[in-house]
């Protein structure tokens, strides 16, 4: 049975009783946008700067968005591109060779697992685009097709970045775990 427009509208009101406001979107998506920038830049103030910039841009064209899904996709896309632009502009984040990434010391945030910190460091040492592809894949659980659309690159390239980055990370992790043992 197909639903009439009125029924769909009613359903949407039931599913989402509060009208969408900029403040509610900011509240519900701030950790997503911030985390994309944070995992990419590995710098909290810089990540907050990028995230604020993304939300200011969203505010300028807030009326253009028709659904929450559209907003979420747009935020991921712009957060990705802005983070890459930020690094390119700043150029202060010197390129770190994956082999030079130090093994993190065991003392750090107590709740943070040693392996997680090591993985984040290794991801942070990837080149810009593969790094953002990995973040969108494993932080945001996006499919390669969605990442391709957000990053304006062919699906083939996304899959290739994923495969190569995964293989490299596996190898480095195996090696560093061997070193620790």
């Amino acid at each position, binding site marked *: 049975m197909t639903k009439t427009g009125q029924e769909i509208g009613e359903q949407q009101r039931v599913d989402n009783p509060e009208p969408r406001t900029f*403040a509610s979107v900011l509240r519900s998506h701030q950790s997503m946008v*911030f985390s994309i920038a944070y995992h990419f830049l590995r710098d909290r103030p810089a990540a907050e700067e990028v995230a*604020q910039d993304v*939300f200011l841009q969203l505010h300028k064209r807030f009326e253009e968005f028709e659904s929450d899904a559209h907003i979420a996709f747009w935020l991921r896309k712009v957060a990705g591109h802005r983070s890459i632009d930020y690094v390119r502009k700043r150029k202060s984040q010197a390129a770190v060779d994956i082999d030079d990434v130090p093994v993190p010391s065991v003392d750090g945030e107590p709740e943070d697992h040693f392996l997680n910190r090591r993985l984040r460091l290794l*991801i942070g040492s990837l080149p810009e685009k593969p790094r953002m592809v*990995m973040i969108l894949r*494993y932080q945001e*659980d996006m499919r390669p097709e969605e990442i391709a659309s957000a990053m304006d690159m062919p699906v083939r390239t996304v899959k290739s970045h994923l495969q190569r980055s995964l293989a490299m990370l596996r190898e480095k992790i195996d090696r560093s775990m061997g070193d620790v043992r």
Partner: protein
Amino acid sequence: MMDDFEKQLQEALSRKEPSPFFEARVLGAVKRQARERRASMRMWWATAVAAVLIVVAVSVWQHQRNEQAREEATGREAKARLELALKITSVKLQKISQKVEGI
């Protein structure tokens, strides 16, 4: 299907929260941006109105100048005509005077 390593990656890249003041800071920046946009719109309108006023004033001044020049030209033309008419009259009167003197 994700393997253990990919699940570990998901855990390592789990979402983090920004600082507690982030939301307030963004909302403050949004208000500032809106104020700046309104101020720049007001500036734009003021500039546009000033430009229109200048154009109108220049047009009125130009029109008045043209009118004045046209009136001066008409006056000069009338003066020249009057002078010619007086000259012709003077010549005719002179001829009549000469004829009267000859009688």
